[in-house]
């Protein structure tokens, strides 16, 4: 169990550093989603199942979905400036 915990904590550090160093926004949001999931597994190793369920549902679910929808709104505005409000799925 100690070795498993050490591997997971190292993974957390790698995820956090690569979020700040990546160039594209979409990549950093995906890495943030996996950071949240690994955090949820660490809660189980620390014997608190309430926190694990809540973090899995809220962190890897709702927060990441909100980030994706924000990106979609911003890029939709970029396209609608260039093409004056035409369809996005071209």
């Amino acid at each position: 169990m100690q070795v498993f915990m050490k591997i997971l904590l190292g993974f957390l550090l790698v995820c956090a550093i690569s979020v700040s160093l990546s160039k594209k926004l979409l990549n950093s949001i995906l890495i943030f989603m996996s950071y949240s999931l690994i955090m949820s597994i660490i809660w189980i190793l620390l014997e608190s199942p309430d926190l694990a369920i809540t973090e899995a549902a809220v962190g890897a679910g709702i927060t990441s979905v909100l980030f994706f929808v924000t990106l979609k709104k911003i890029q939709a505005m970029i396209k609608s400036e260039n093409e004056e409000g035409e369809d996005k799925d071209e």
Partner: protein
Amino acid sequence: MSKKVSEEKYKKTLTYRLKQWLDGEDLFTGTVEMKPQEPYKVDQAVSEQRHEEKKRLLEQIYDIEHNPEMRIFNKIYRLFAFLFCIFLVLMLLTAVSNLPTVGSADRPVNNEVAKRYIENGLQETGAVNIVTGMILDYRAFDTLGESHVLFVATCTVLILLREDKKKKAEQNQNNDRLYEPKNDVILQTVAKILVPPIVIFGIYVILCGHLGPGGGFSGGAIIGAGLILYQNAFGFHKTERFFTAKTYKVLSFSALACYALSKCYSFYTGANHLESGIPLGTPGAILSSGLIFVLNICVGIVVAGTMYTFYVMFRKGGY
């Protein structure tokens, strides 16, 4: 017998003036207005100087790319921010190295409060899950504040992102294809199979919050995620058949009001909870633990509505 006074004297008495005021006449014309002032004359030289200064400020000083001073300031700021972060981390690591070992049993954190909650928790609250019994019975006041935080966040997102239906009616007709799904076969088949188990699982986690891990927050988030999946696969028309703005308003308001009414006396009694009249049943059954069952359902409804509202406000700007 009253004495009759002359006309001019009568007009100066208090009763005459009161009678005039009651009749609606204005008594103070000519006495309290401001005297007319001279018009403001613009001094040519001063205004030209101000204009020059403003132009110089805009073009030379606030331009980040070309002003060398701003660039040096930027670099110094980044250097100092980096050094400050390293200093902060070193200070925190020094504090960590003086803490007792993680996982030992004789730390100052494990004091008599935890002993009371574990040993008498089952008899006093009736909940098998000690954490749920703690946050909904011993410390229900904190959960009340937290539900209000969710409510305020929803109100703020509504204010910022809501779009007026009348103004955007013309644009909506052109851009409506942005919001409708593309009838993706894989997504719709998977959603048809997955959404009912997700919602039922969420209801199970809410109802059995006092018997196992879970509770109001996790169950509400799971139900919210199920609703988001349904809306993503099938579009706004089909979701509006069962979840409109009025549904959200009625559900959320009644759930939050129910919670607030049952625990608001803590403002006066200083967070010492009174006994609710509901009997605690046998531990291990679903209908046990008194008021915790009702409060779990209220919190679950508020959280589910909040998560779905966040998504819909970001996506379309309205229900």
